[in-house]
Structures are given as structure tokens and as C-alpha cells.
């Protein structure tokens, strides 16, 4: 779960460590332990959504709703403001006998722009927070990781986690039931 503000890719000889688990249950319990061990720069990878995994990983709620709210309000304000300016200042016209500032007529555009901006905020905010699109990722160098879309469950811990140590972290993951642990090279 890369967050904004984190370095784009880690420095050093290793990207991190990858551990493979056989079942969702193994992965779930391992995630709880990794979370409790205090790791912060790590992720879990599964072929399908595992219920409650975000809780086991200790993921905080995304700031995305605030982005959507901010964008929605901005869009609504822009939509209303533009119409207000046009109808009262820039090009006042009498339309069907209504006053220049006929606010009910401005509501549909205000609503539409609010929705448009909120939707754009949701899509691009999500992409930005997830640092997408990302054309390549060091995890893809691992051969076993190809099974992540098939039948295997993984935890990856990145080397720039303050608690990362190539051998100790590997041993921890093995003790949690990983059936394979792999040290990944930086590219």
C-alpha cells in the first residue's frame, strides 16, 4: 500500500522480501502478526478479495472520501459561480421573464458539475493514491509471484521499512507458515 509522500522505489540492493502462503487463512493470520510486529511498508497479494484482510493488515481508512468531497464542492461552487457571473455580470439577459439571478435554473448545472468533479476526483484520486498507472514493479521479477492471479497468497515487505532486516524478517515470515520466502533484488 504505497502512500503519497513515500519514496517511489526503495534504495539499496534489495527491493524487499516476498513470502508465499498456501491458504487465505494462513495469509490472514500472518498479516495480523506482521501488523503486530510493527511493519508499515508492506502489502498482501491475493487472487481474490479476502474478507476482513484490511483489518488484519491494520490499514487505515483511505483519505479518498475527503478528496471526493472537496472536488464535489469545488465543482458545485464553480458551476454555480459561473452561472451567477454570466447571468448577473457578464451577459445579463432576461430569459422567460425570470430575474437575472434565477437560482432554481442554476441548480441542474450546479448538481451536474458537482457530480462530475466528484467522480473525476474519485477516479483520479484513487489512481493517484495507488500510484497508478505503474508499468512495472519489482515484484514482477519473481517467478513464483506469477501465481498471485491463480492460487497463491503473498506478503511482501519492502526493504525501506524501518523494521526490515533481510534475514530476521525472512525468519519471521517462515515462522508464520510461509511455504516459500524469497529475497527480491532491486532493479
Amino acid at each position: 500500500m504505497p502512500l503519497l509522500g513515500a519514496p517511489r522505489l526503495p534504495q539499496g540492493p534489495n527491493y524487499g522480501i516476498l513470502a508465499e502462503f498456501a491458504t487465505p487463512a494462513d495469509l490472514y493470520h500472518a498479516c495480523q502478526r506482521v501488523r503486530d510486529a510493527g511493519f508499515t511498508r508492506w502489502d498482501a497479494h491475493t487472487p481474490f478479495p479476502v474478507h476482513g484482510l484490511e483489518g488484519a493488515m491494520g490499514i487505515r481508512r483511505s483519505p479518498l472520501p475527503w478528496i471526493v468531497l472537496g472536488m464535489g464542492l469545488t465543482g458545485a461552487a464553480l458551476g454555480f459561480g459561473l452561472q451567477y457571473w454570466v447571468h448577473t455580470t457578464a451577459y445579463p439577459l432576461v430569459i422567460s421573464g425570470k430575474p437575472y439571478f434565477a437560482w432554481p435554473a442554476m441548480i441542474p448545472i450546479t448538481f451536474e458539475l458537482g457530480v462530475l468533479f466528484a467522480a473525476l476526483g474519485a477516479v483520479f484520486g484513487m489512481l493517484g493514491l495507488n500510484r497508478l498507472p505503474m508499468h512495472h514493479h519489482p515484484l514482477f521479477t519473481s517467478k513464483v509471484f506469477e501465481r498471485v492471479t491463480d492460487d497463491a497468497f503473498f506478503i511482501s515487505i519492502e526493504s525501506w521499512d524501518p523494521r526490515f532486516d533481510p534475514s530476521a524478517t525472512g525468519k519471521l515470515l517462515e515462522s508464520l507458515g510461509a511455504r516459500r520466502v524469497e529475497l527480491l533484488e532491486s532493479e
Partner: protein
Amino acid sequence: MIPERDRVALRPEQATIPPGHPWNRIPVIGASCALLGIVACAILGAANPRQFFFSWLVSFLFFLSLTLGALFFVLIQYAAQGGWGIVLRRIGETVFATIPAMAALFLPVLLGLHDLYEWSHAEAVAADPLLRWKAPYLNVPFFLIRAALYFGIWSFIALLYYRGSRGQDVTGDLGVSFRLRRLAGPAIIVLALTQTFASVDWIMSLTPHWYSTMFGVYFFAGSFVGFIALLSVVATAMRRSGLLDTVISTEHLHDIGKLLFAFTVFWAYIAFSQFFLVWYANLPEETTWFRARMEGSWMTVSFFLMAGHFVAPFFYLMGHAVKRRDSTLAVGGAWLLVMHFVDLYWQVMPTLHPEGVRPSALDLAALVAVGGCVVAAASWLMRRQALVPLRDPRLAESLAFENV
């Protein structure tokens, strides 16, 4: 091994009101309130029958709309084969099981027909070409036939679903679920039509010159917001008093909150669209109704509706945490119940008091009388039944429900 259909997700004693529980007293309290309200209505209404009939109509419509909202809530869950809301379904079923009682509470409206509806006066119709033209629909005999039809259809659907669900508690018969699911689609269509015509008959025809083709949807939107608001309050009250506190979870509250939020927006969308088209076209026969509500103190109520029925709850219910805490959700629900009442008051009362808002003690008396009857009936049913559909095949799914 126990066959799937006989497995019990919840023991009956986990889902009934235990003896000695304070909720056992609610029927008596409700009935006392009803009696008090009826006496107050009789005393105050004798001096001012016109005010009484209008006040009664508002309160009658308020509670009727909640029962119809409950009916819709249960029907869509059957039609969509919803799983999450099974633990809340019995609350809805209990609310709409009072529909036959609503028919009795409609009688004062019939007694006040001439005070309420201008079109019921032969001399007014004779003098008014527009009313003459509408007379084939707006006449007393046909009005009575339609009202009988509405209550007949609603009671039939309500009892069909209530009895079916209660019966399943005992037999565990899966066939009930299948049968009620097949009927849910047609029942929704019938409910939509009857509810639309009822709102035209009982509210729109108060101003017989006026018409709005959106009025039925507007009434529906309000009724569904009202029921979901009631649901949030009842679910919270139950949890707080130790009923279903392990059954109705934060996840269920969250979904109630989402529905409440969504239908508050829907109500606003419909209410504004209705106003907007009339305002824009500016045709005299359409503007009269809004004109009356844009003058004097009724304009203040109109603004209050916009702010209180949409803007405030929209921002209040938007957040995640508000919907997941029972106290904050119930505050939002209680507020929207009040606003739903204000909405109906605003629809009905300007016919009686075009000069401005004139609150009356009869408004309160009628509310207590009708509300007391409905609460007494619903809580009496609750004492006699399980508080959740114990053997619905989706109960286990509902109990384990989690928002992703």
C-alpha cells in the same frame, strides 16, 4: 447431521421480548396516549371541526406513509433476494401489519370529506368548469370505492407477507420464501400504482385545480425516507434496551444509514424536480400550489424543508462514522422523521390556512391519537412474535453480514 433447513441460526429466546422487559408496557402506553389524543381531539375538535379534520389528515398520512414505506422495504428485499436486511425485516413487517388498523383511522377523513375537499360540494363543482371536467374522477362515490380498493389491496399484500413470514418461523418451510419472492415483483407494481393514486386522491385533490404528474413519486420518496428513519430509531431503541443487541450489528446500522442518506437525496431530487418544472414553465394552473407555499410564513417552511429535509441531513449522514454509531444514526433518523411530518404538514395545511402557518393544539392531539393507535398495535404484535424471521433461509447470511 441436521438438515440445512432445520438448522437454527438464532434461538427463539434471543429474539423475543423477555417477560418483565419494559417493552411489554408499550402497548398500554400507546393505547393510553391514543385514548388521551382521541379525547383531546373530541373536545378541541368540537369547537373547530375543520381544523380537526386537516390535523387528522396530516397525522393519518404521516403514519400511513411509514407503513407503506415499510411494505416497500420488505418487498424490495424479497424481489432482490437481499440477505443483509433479514434481521431488520420483522420490524418492517410489524409496521405494515398495522395497515388494516390504518383503514379504521381513515374514517375521520371520510367524516370530514366536505370540510377537506372542495370538489365534494356539488354546488362548487357546478360553478367551476374545471371541476366539472374532473368530476368523473373526483366525485364522492368513486373516491370511496378507490379508498376501499387501496386499503383492500394494501391489507391483502401486508397480511400475505406478514402471515407468510410468521408462519415460516414455525414451519421453516422454504416454499414460503420462494412464493413471496415470486409475488414481490407484481406486488411492488401494484403498490406503486395504488400509492400514487392515493396521494392524488388524499393530498393533491385538496387543491383540485392543481396537478403535478410527479406527485406520486414525491409521496413515495417521503414515505420511504420516513420508514428508513423510523427503522434507524427503532433499531437503536431495541439495541439500547437489550433487544437484538447481539443481532443488529454496526454493519446493519451502516446499511440503514446508507439507505437513509440515499433516499434523502432522492427525496430532494424529486421535490426539486417537481418545483423546478412548474417554476420554469410558469403555467397558471400549475403554479397555484407553489404560489401558496411561497408567500408569508409558508415560504419560511419551504426554506426550512430545503435546509432540514435535505441540506443538513445530506452533510450529516455523508460521513462513515455517523452511520456506524447507533446514537448518531438515530439522531439523524429522528430528525428526518420530524422533517417528514413537516413535509406532509406543508403539503396539506396551506389549503386550510392560506394566510400563513397556524399551529394548532389539534395538530398535536391528532398526532398523539393516531400515533398512539399505531404504536399500540405494532408493539402488541411485537410482544406476540419473534423479533426476527427466525427460519428465513438467509438469516445466517444476514447475521454474518459485513460491509466490504
